[in-house]
Structures are given as structure tokens and as C-alpha cells.
């Protein structure tokens, strides 16, 4: 009954432009922020942070990034893994070269470097579309992984060919390296997620977002209304790659600590993030979170239920996971291209009219 806009009239256009125009949505959003910042850090432990929260937060950033490119601007990319690797190697080089500078700055700079690389690989998008662009980004994926493997400068000539994150602190508290506390790494990632989500939301509700969506929906009409297609597509590549770079930097430095590029940032990563936004919902920030949560939680859940409770062998459970994810992607692509986000919207629509559906 209380979930509706009836009686909640907007008197200014600014009010009407709010992220959550319905009061109840707004309160729920504040509640989530409150819970995430002020409750979770006190109850969280290592298992939860490593198995659920950190991958969820970091993949959310990558999913938001990819969603900007694919969902909002309509440019298909299979290079996510490669761009995450750029973020990881950039932050590694920066951390080791300038140890006195804050890791916070390094991660943002790593995003910036990835952004530039993304723009360079986005240049062909002016000429090629759809399937062909996907193949071009796939080339970027393989090239980048190959590059980080082949050129020792990137991994500081370490014998293993791996990169590993030295300890870095924020306000004296370790966020990278072997001696981190669960709550510290969690909060560190949460801050980046919050910033990224806000930026993404602001960009997509204004002119920039409308330019991207115009290009996505009909590039000819976009041009006729004054959108410079090159600038607009490249700005999508830049913003998208920035987010993906930040997520790659966090994934390496805060989450894993040590990385072998082909294993961690291979083509599988590209597909995983793509599946997240397909299942979560193309062109939706909320959907990016939903998709990341879903694909992070699904294996944890299956493992706990099938292996833990039913005693299945681990590899069988893993196979089942593949099948479930595959089936879901097909179902979503056919039945609900707007993903979980759309299901959520429909549910809210029903709730808004309840108990008088007409």
C-alpha cells in the first residue's frame, strides 16, 4: 500500500529526475547504504569477504563498466578480461614504482591508464559493428594477455612471471598484502563501488547517457540530432574501461594479492562479466549489481548445498553450475533480454498497484 507515487507529487523537474523518484525506493537505498557501511564491516569474517563480498563488489564495478559499453552504448566487447589485466598491471607498476603514493590514487590512475588503452582499442568501433567489433575486442583480449606474459618489464622481471601486491595502507590500515583485515578490504572495495555506481548513474541519466543510448538505438538518427558518433563511442569506451580497470586493479591488489595473467584475466573473465550483465539486465546499473551477485552467489550456493549437504563430488557440482548458467543465459536472452532488473521492475509495478490491480 505504501509503495506508490500516488500522493507523492513532484513539483520540480529536479525532483522528477531523482535516481529514486519513489520515496520508499529512496529509503530502501539509504537503508542498503547504511547496512553496507555501518553494519556489515562489524560482522564480516574472512570466509564471507573472500567467498562472497569482495568478488561481488569487484565484479559489480566491472559489470557496471561493461554495461555502459554494451548495455547503454550498444558496442559489444569481449575484451573485459584483457582490460582488467591492464588495470592490474598498471596498479602493480605504480605501486612498485611509487610506493610513497597512496594506493587509492594508484587504483584511480590504473583506471585512467585502462581508459586510454580502451579508447585505443575502441577506435575500430567507428567502422565496424556487432559481431565484427566483438571479434576485434577479442583480439584485444588475446593481445593484452600475451603482452603481459611476454614483456618482463610488466612483471618487474620476477622469476615466476607473476605479479604480487606488496603491503599498502590507508590511514595506517593495511588493504593489500598478506596482513589485511576482512573489514578493511571490504570497506576499501565498497568505497570504490559506491563512487563508481554514483558516477555511472549520473552519466547515464544526463546528456552523455542519452548520447550513448541514441547511438545504441539508431546511429543514423543519433547523428542527425547532432551526436558525433566517434566522440560518443570513444567516451563510452573510456568510461567503461576506466571502471573495468579499477575493478582489475582491485581484483589483483586487494582480492587475490598475486596474479598469473593468463589464468586470472583470460577469456573466461570476459565471458563471465558479459554473462553478468546479460542475466542482470543490459542498460541497467541495478542489473549490473544483480548479475554480479547472482553469478558470485550461485557457485557458493551450489557448492554448499550439493557438496556440503548432499555430498556430491565437487567436479559434478561444478559441471552442474556450467549447465545452470548456460541455461539461464539462453532463457534470459530469449524470454527476458532486460534481465533480472526487468523482473524486479515488473514486480515493483505489480506491487505499486496492489491491492487494486486496475
Amino acid at each position, binding site marked *: 500500500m505504501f509503495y506508490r507515487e500516488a500522493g507523492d507529487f513532484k513539483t520540480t*523537474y*529536479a525532483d522528477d529526475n531523482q535516481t529514486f523518484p519513489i520515496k520508499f525506493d529512496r529509503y530502501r537505498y539509504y537503508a542498503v547504504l547504511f547496512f553496507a557501511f555501518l553494519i556489515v564491516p562489524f560482522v564480516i569474517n574472512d570466509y564471507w569477504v573472500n567467498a562472497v563480498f569482495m568478488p561481488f563488489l569487484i565484479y559489480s564495478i566491472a559489470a557496471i563498466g561493461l554495461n555502459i559499453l554494451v548495455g547503454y552504448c550498444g558496442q559489444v566487447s569481449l575484451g573485459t578480461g584483457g582490460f582488467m589485466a591492464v588495470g592490474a598491471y598498471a596498479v602493480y607498476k605504480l605501486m612498485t614504482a611509487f610506493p610513497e603514493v597512496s594506493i587509492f590514487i594508484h587504483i584511480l590512475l590504473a583506471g585512467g591508464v585502462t581508459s586510454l588503452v580502451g579508447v585505443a582499442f575502441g577506435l575500430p568501433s567507428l567502422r565496424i559493428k556487432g559481431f565484427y567489433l566483438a571479434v576485434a575486442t577479442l583480439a584485444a583480449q588475446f593481445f593484452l594477455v600475451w603482452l603481459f606474459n611476454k614483456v618482463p618489464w610488466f612483471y618487474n622481471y620476477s622469476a615466476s612471471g607473476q605479479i604480487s601486491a606488496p603491503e599498502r595502507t590507508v590511514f595506517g590500515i593495511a588493504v593489500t598484502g598478506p596482513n589485511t583485515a576482512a573489514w578493511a578490504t571490504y570497506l576499501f572495495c565498497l568505497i570504490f563501488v559506491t563512487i563508481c555506481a554514483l558516477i555511472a548513474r549520473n*552519466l547515464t541519466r*544526463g546528456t552523455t547517457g542519452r548520447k550513448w543510448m541514441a547511438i545504441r538505438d539508431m546511429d543514423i538518427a543519433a547523428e542527425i*540530432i547532432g551526436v*558525433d558518433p566517434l566522440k560518443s563511442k570513444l567516451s563510452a569506451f573510456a*568510461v567503461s574501461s576506466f571502471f573495468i580497470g579499477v575493478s582489475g586493479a582491485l581484483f589483483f591488489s586487494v582480492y587475490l594479492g598475486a596474479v598469473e595473467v593468463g589464468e586470472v584475466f583470460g577469456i573466461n573473465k570476459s565471458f563471465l562479466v558479459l554473462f553478468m550483465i546479460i542475466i542482470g539486465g543490459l542498460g541497467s546499473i541495478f542489473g549490473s549489481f544483480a548479475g554480479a551477485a547472482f553469478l558470485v552467489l550461485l557457485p557458493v550456493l551450489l557448492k554448499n548445498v550439493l557438496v556440503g549437504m548432499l555430498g556430491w563430488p565437487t567436479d559434478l557440482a561444478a559441471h552442474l553450475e556450467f549447465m545452470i548458467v548456460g541455461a539461464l543465459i539462453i532463457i534470459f536472452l530469449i524470454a527476458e533480454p532486460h534481465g533480472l532488473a526487468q523482473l524486479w521492475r515488473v514486480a515493483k509495478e505489480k506491487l505499486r498497484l496492489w491491492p487494486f490491480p486496475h
Partner: protein
Amino acid sequence: MSDQMTEGYITEDGRKIGGTLMEMKNITLRFGGVKAITDISFDIKEGEIRAIIGPNGAGKSSMLNVISGFYVPQEGEVWYKGAKRPQMKPYQVAQQGIARTFQNIALFEGMSVLDNVMTGRLNHMKTNMFQQAIWKGKAEKEEVENREVVEKIIDFLEIQSIRKTPVGRLPYGLKKRVELARALAVEPHLLLLDEPMAGMNVEEKEDMSRFILDVNDEFGTTIALIEHDMGVVMDLSDRVVVMDYGKKIGDGTPDEVRNNQDVIDAYLGVSHD
């Protein structure tokens, strides 16, 4: 005729038409062996409603595409606001204040009506991406200011009730209207309409005619439109260009054109709807 080609004139209903806004000089456009436009010249004057008519395949849409920069003519010059226009991309043409609608609707199907119309404001919005990322302050202010302009246009075209509806769900007639709204949001100097009434019923056509006249009247917008319905053309337009097989076969007021023997033979003689 010749005196009105150089300077402005007064229309039958007493409106003052200004000097030349756009002039097409000896335009020839070929697609491989097909000549879509052969050596056509005509002008569009400030404040007038200029119609382009002709049978199917005459080259009318091609002419609009030349004006809006989609097609580059092999020969000829485009003059706009007293200067020869260099070769331009469509988005650059748009930035010069030329907006248009398409024969086959070209809206952004995944976006709401409001967002579609807001895209028309793109070139009026100056904040950069960093200001937009922060939103509070400049970007929000600019958004609200432009939203006010857009809401006026939405009121003007009487589409308030579908503001938040995704365009993909709208019926054909309303889509045409939203496309006009998007073009008007540009606040164009020159508005190009490619068959704005095609596929509409009588009532919708009357509405659209009224809107076109009101736009011209209230905002002083110069309009060039392509239309098949001769009744509509005669009612709306101040001057008419007639094309057939890519050639210009008539140019003048509706009455002059109607009495031109070439036009009668080529166009008015053949049956049309």
C-alpha cells in the same frame, strides 16, 4: 517569379518571408549508374514553408539527405545563411541548426518519449563529462533548464500523457509526433520533414497540419517538407518544388505549380492517393 527569388516577399495570407536561408545550386547526385538528382537548383527563404513534391522515386528524400549531409552530391553547391557550405558530416549539419524527421520513423526505440525529445537538446547542453559525473551543480541545473524547454514542446504537441512511455510501445501516429517533437527540441532554423503525414488517417493529418502551421507561425521556423497528399501541400506551403525522375519540372506558388503543364503531365495527371 524572378523578383521573389532575390529578396523576401509577402505571402497570400500576409506573412512576411525573409531573404534566402538555404540555396541548392546545380545539385547532381548519382548512385553508381542511377541518377537520383539531375542538376537541380532551388532556394528556401527565411520563414517560409517550402514543399517538395513528385512521384515515387523522384529523388525527394535524396534531396533532403543532401541537405542534411547523408549524401554527398557529385556536383553542385549548398549555400546556407549566405555562405557556401563545405562538405559536412550529418552531426555537423545538425549543429548548424538543421533538424529533420525521416520518411520511415527513426526514433530511439529503447528510450522514453521524454529522453527522445531531450536528445534534441544535446547541442544546447554544454557541461562536460566530469561535471555530469558529479551531477550536482552545473549538470543538474542545465538538465532542468533544458527539461523546461522540452516540456513546453511536449505540451505544444499534446503528448504529456505519454512522456515516460518507451517509444517502442507507441502507435505509428504518435511516433510521428514524437519525432517532430525531437526535431523541434533542437529549436532549428531549418526544419526538414520527410512525409510527416504518410500513413496517417484524416484526423491525424489535420492535427499534424495544424502543428506544422503553428510551428512556423509561433517560432518562425523555416520548414521544407516532402508530401504526397496534394491537398495538404496546397494548404500548407508557400512555394513548391516539383521533381520527376530526378529533375526539377516546376517551382512556384501552389497555384502556379498547379497550372504548370509539365507538372500536370508528369505528376498531377497520374493517379495518386
